[in-house]
């Protein structure tokens, strides 16, 4: 085992510095496919978040037993089991949302971000750190999905959180916002090219923010150094 990582650092890595969708660019298939609306993005994001936490925890618990030669098939088995459990639970408890997300739930198995975290982090760290890492990576991915979904839904349909009742029940209808009434719609945003362009814009925005942060801290350090 490597030295104990600082949990805050682990958290910030997953959420910002190594954000799966915006920096590492893993798991793009679901990212691009389901982000037509906020609710779809949130649904798949939460399912992926749960998968990441559960698979990271299981891998970390079993890490003492796992030999290098069987670790990949073992990861696949663990992740596939976790995803199937989540699929069954969604089918039982959020049935309407399950009908919308349909095929993308089993496809979480193929999200390389999950096996990536199992291999690069969970199999080398104790369960608490692995859980924090799964949580942060999942949150980062989920936020990316929601942001991209919001961008595309707003541009494409002029609404936000439409069909929220699929996730939150009848109370969810109150959350549905028509931001731009009588909006004609902007088809490109909803179609697949809109997903690529939207993702590109989000990546650019994140890079810009990051560059600004670095510049500011450099200026700050200089000022401190001079003082």
């Amino acid at each position, binding site marked *: 085992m490597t030295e104990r990582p600082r949990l805050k650092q682990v958290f910030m890595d997953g959420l910002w510095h190594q954000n799966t969708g915006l920096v590492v660019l893993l798991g793009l298939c679901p990212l691009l496919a389901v982000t*037509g609306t906020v609710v779809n993005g949130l649904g798949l994001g939460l399912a992926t978040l749960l998968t990441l936490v559960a698979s990271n925890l299981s891998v970390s618990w*079993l890490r003492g*037993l*796992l*030999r290098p*030669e*069987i670790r990949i*098939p*073992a990861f696949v*088995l*663990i992740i*596939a*089991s976790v995803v*199937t*459990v989540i699929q*069954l*639970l969604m*089918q*039982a*408890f959020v*049935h*309407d949302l399950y*009908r919308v997300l349909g095929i993308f739930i089993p496809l979480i198995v193929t999200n390389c971000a999950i096996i990536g975290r199992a291999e690069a982090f969970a199999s080398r760290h104790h369960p608490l750190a692995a859980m924090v890492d799964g949580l942060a990576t999942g949150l980062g991915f989920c936020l990316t999905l929601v942001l991209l979904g919001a961008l595309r839904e707003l541009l*494409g*349909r002029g609404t936000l959180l439409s*069909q929220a009742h699929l996730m939150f029940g009848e109370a969810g209808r109150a959350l549905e916002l028509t931001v731009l009434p009588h909006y004609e*719609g902007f*088809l490109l945003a*909803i*179609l697949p090219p809109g997903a690529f362009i939207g993702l590109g814009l989000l990546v650019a925005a994140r890079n810009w923010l990051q560059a600004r942060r670095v510049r500011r801290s450099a200026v700050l350090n200089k000022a401190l150094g001079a003082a």
Partner: protein
Amino acid sequence: MSGKTTGVAHQVLSSAGLLALIAILGTGLLAAVNELTRERIAEQERQALIRQLGRVLPEGAYDNDPLGDTLTLRHDSLSRSDEAVRVYRARKGEQPVAVVLDHVAPDGYNGDIQLLTSILADGRISGVRVVSHRETPGLGDPIEAERSDWILAFTGRSLEDPEPERWGVTRDGGVFDQFTGATITPRAVVEAVQRALEYHQANRDALYRRNEQKRDD
């Protein structure tokens, strides 16, 4: 040398055993969760179907359980030829009220459009809904009742209303609107509903016949 071979064999076997153990744990977990959720999932699917049937059937006009009164048939005009079409029958006492056909418009812009069409015993439509489709978002999806009222235009129609040559989208000289930028999707739905009506007219009595699996004719 032999010691080394034994070592390798031991390692391979214990790796395989470990993998098998993980597989057994995973399978056990799945079996348990499946057992716990099975009834609830079946119930959810039933409820979803009841809600869908409730949207197309005339409210309060029947007193049986259409979900328990079904028949399965195959016909080229209702689905791709190898696929079964499910029919739910609504009755009041022994009187036929309506049949709901779970049929397919095979010629959508992006493949199959799954429809529920409810036809009253007198040949009028009491409701049509799209169950699933892969039409272009923003262009073809006004066929969903959640997105526009278009699909409601079928309610009350029959093979005679409008007359056969007007059973089509506006572009083809018919009475049903098309959408801006999308003609293929509404055309596919209109034609599928018309075919369902024609099938109903030709096979009405057979559709209501009890306890018999009807086959292709």
